[in-house]
C-alpha cells in the first residue's frame, strides 16, 4: 500500500510541489499522521505554504483541530518554562533546554507543529543537587518513590528521576548529560556547555547550538531504543538538516564537532536514514567524510533492515511484522549499548519480574 505520510514528507514543498499533487487519499494521510503524532506538523506545513484551502473540508477540520492542540501546547510549555526559569534563575543554576522545548524557544525548523509533553533540561553535574532542591521547594516533586528506581536513576542514568509538578501534573526531566554514562558512546557533557545559544527568557537559560541539537536528536533516536515516535523524530532531523543547509552552515565543522563529542555514528545513521527514508538532501561529501565510521557491508545491510522497518510510521492498516521485530531487536541493542551486561541482566530481570507480578504496568 502507498504510504501517504512518507510521500508527504518526501515531496511536500520541495521545488514548490503542492499537496494536490502528492496526497491521493486524505483519509489515509490523516489516520497515519495521527498515529505518528504528526497531524499538527502537516497542518503547520500546509498553512505555512498557504495551501490549507486545497484540503477537502472534512480532513481540513481535523488538521485545524490539530493546530489548536499545537497552539495550546505552546501556551502551556511557555507557562511551565516561565516557572522553571524563575526557580533555577533564583537558585543561580544555569540550564540548557533540550528537545521539544528547545525547538520551540529557539524557533528552529523542528518547532513546526511539534507537540510534546515532558520538558527536558540539562544542568551541569555538580549543580544538579542544587537544581533538584530548588525545584522540589517550588512544587516539582519526584514522580516515583520506589527505592530501586531512585537508586537506579541516580547511580546509572544521565538524569535524576522525573519531577512532576504537584499542581499541574506536568513532567520535568533533569539531565546532567545526554546519554547514560554507562553507554558505549561517551560524549563529554562539558563540551556541550562551550557552544550554547542564549534564549530570551532569563540569562541563565540556553539551548544547544543547531549542530549539537541535531547530534542530540540523532543520539536519542538511534541509541535510545524507543521507536513509538521514531518517524516523527526522523522528520525532526529532516527539518533540522534542511535548516542547517539553508543557513549555509559548514558540514566540515559539523563532522568535526561530531568527532569532538564522539558522536560520529549517530550522525552517520541520521544522514543515512533521513536521506534514505525522507530523501533529505545531504551533500555527497558528508557521506565521504563519514565513510570511515561506516559499518561493514553485512552490518550495513542488517542495520538498514532494522532501522528502515523500525522507523516506519505506525499504521492502522497492514502493519508489517518486521516493524515489531525490528523495534524489539533495536530496543535490545540499545540496552546492550547503554549498559554492560553485569548491570543489564539484573536490571531487565527485575523489570520483567515487576511486570509479571503486576507491580509495574508499563
Amino acid at each position, binding site marked *: 500500500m502507498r504510504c501517504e505520510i512518507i510521500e508527504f514528507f518526501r515531496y511536500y514543498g520541495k521545488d514548490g510541489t503542492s499537496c494536490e499533487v502528492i496526497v491521493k487519499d486524505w*483519509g489515509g494521510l490523516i489516520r497515519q499522521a*495521527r498515529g505518528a503524532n504528526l497531524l499538527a506538523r502537516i497542518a503547520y506545513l500546509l498553512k505555512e505554504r498557504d495551501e490549507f484551502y486545497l484540503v477537502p473540508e472534512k480532513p481540513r477540520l*481535523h488538521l485545524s483541530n490539530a493546530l489548536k*492542540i499545537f497552539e*495550546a501546547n505552546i501556551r*502551556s510549555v511557555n507557562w511551565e518554562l516561565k516557572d522553571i526559569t524563575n526557580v533555577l534563575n533564583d537558585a543561580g543554576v544555569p540550564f540548557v533546554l533540550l528537545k521539544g522545548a528547545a525547538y520551540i524557544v529557539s524557533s528552529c525548523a523542528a518547532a513546526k507543529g511539534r507537540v510534546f509533553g515532558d520538558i527536558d533540561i540539562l544542568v551541569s553535574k555538580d549543580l544538579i543537587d542544587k537544581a533538584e532542591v530548588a525545584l522540589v521547594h517550588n512544587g516539582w516533586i519526584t514522580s516515583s518513590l520506589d527505592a530501586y528506581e531512585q537508586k537506579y536513576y541516580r547511580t546509572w542514568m544521565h538524569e535524576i528521576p522525573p519531577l512532576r509538578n504537584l499542581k499541574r501534573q506536568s513532567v520535568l526531566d533533569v539531565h546532567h548529560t545526554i546519554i547514560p554514562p554507562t553507554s558505549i558512546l561517551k560524549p563529554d557533557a562539558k563540551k556541550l556547555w562551550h557552544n550554547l545559544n542564549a534564549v530570551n527568557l532569563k540569562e541563565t537559560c540556553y539551548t544547544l547550538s543547531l549542530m549539537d541539537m541535531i547530534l542530540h536528536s540523532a543520539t536519542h533516536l538511534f541509541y535510545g531504543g524507543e521507536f513509538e515516535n521514531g518517524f516523527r523524530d526522523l522528520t525532526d532531523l529532516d527539518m533540522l538538516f534542511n535548516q542547517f543547509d539553508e543557513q549555509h552552515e559548514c558540514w566540515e565543522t559539523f563532522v568535526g564537532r561530531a568527532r569532538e563529542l564522539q558522536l560520529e555514528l549517530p550522525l552517520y545513521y541520521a544522514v543515512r536514514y533521513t536521506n534514505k527514508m525522507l530523501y533529505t538532501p545531504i551533500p555527497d561529501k558528508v557521506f565521504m567524510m563519514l565513510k570511515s565510521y561506516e559499518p561493514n557491508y553485512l552490518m550495513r545491510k542488517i542495520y538498514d533492515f532494522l532501522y528502515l522497518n523500525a522507523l516506519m510510521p505506525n499504521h*492502522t492498516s497492514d502493519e508489517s511484522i518486521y516493524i515489531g521485530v525490528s523495534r524489539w531487536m533495536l530496543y535490545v541493542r540499545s540496552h546492550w549499548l547503554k549498559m554492560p551486561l553485569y548491570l543489564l541482566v539484573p536490571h531487565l530481570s527485575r523489570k520483567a519480574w515487576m511486570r509479571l507480578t503486576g507491580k509495574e*504496568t508499563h
Partner: protein
Amino acid sequence: MRLSELNKSNFTRCISSDGLGLKIGPFTVCLKSSVPSVAEHLIGLYGGFKLVSKDEFIDFQVSIGFPNNLRRFIYQQAIFSFDNYYPFLPLPLPQAGAMFEWGLNWCVANQSHQYLIIHAAVVERDGYAIILPGVPGSGKSTLCAALVCSGWRLLSDEMTLLSLVNGRIYPIPRPISLKNQSIDIIKNFSDKAVITSIVPNTIKGTLGHMRTFEKCLSCIDIPAIPSRIIFPRYTLGSNNLLKPINKHHAFMKVAENSFNFNVLGAVGFNAIKKLIVDCDVYEFEYHSLREAIMLFEQFGL
C-alpha cells in the same frame, strides 16, 4: 440506508472485516470489531442510525478487539483503539459495548475542537435548547432521559457540542447511559423507554443504555439555539426548586465542565462568555422527576 435495514449476515461480515461505517451526529465513525457483545450493542441501540459508504471520509476509525496476550483464553478482555492509539486499559469482555461509548466520547472530546464541548446533557423543544451540565451522580442523565420520554428532543446525554462558528448546538443523540437505580426509575417513568445492553459490575456500577427515539434521529442534522443552562442536582427530599444563579459563577462552572476549554484558549473563553450572556442560568435541586418535568414544561420561549 439505516443499520437496521442491513441483514444479519451482511452486518456481521461488515463489522468484523472492513468495519461498519455509521453517521453519528456530525461525525462519521467506522467501527471494526469481532467481539459479539459489541455487535449486540450496535444492533440494539444504533439501528436507526444511517450507514456511510466506503468512499466517504471517516472521522474516527475505531476498533474493539482482544488484547494480544493470554487473556484471549481466560477471563476474556476487550481493548479499544483509535488510529493505533489505545486510550484505555483493557476491560472485561461483557463491557465491550459500553467501551464503544466511552471510546467514542474520548475521540469526540479530544479531536473535535471545532466545537466547545461541555460535559452536559442537552435537550431541545421548539428550536431552543436547555443545557444540563452535571458532575457524575448529579442525576443529569436520569433527568435527561425523563425529559426525552416526555417529548423533548435529545441532542446529547453526555457532551454538548457548541459550534464556534454560529453558537448553535449540534445534535449527537447517542443512547443515554443510565446507572444503577436510574435504569428502573426510567423504566417505571415511561413505557416508551427501551433500555438494553445492561451490564453489571462496571466501574460505574450497573450500566444500561436507552435507545434513541426515532423522532430524534429524523432531525439529527438540525442544530438548536441555546436558551437555558440548568445545573441539576438530585437531592433527596428537596422541593424541586429552580434558583437563578450569578452569571460569573455560571461561567466558571461551565468552564470547569468543558472538555476542551484549555485547548481553545481565548476562543473558548469568548464562546462561553457569549453562551452565558445569551442564556438564563439556574441551579436546580430536584427530587421528583414528574414535578421536574412539569416545571420544564412551563418554560416559555
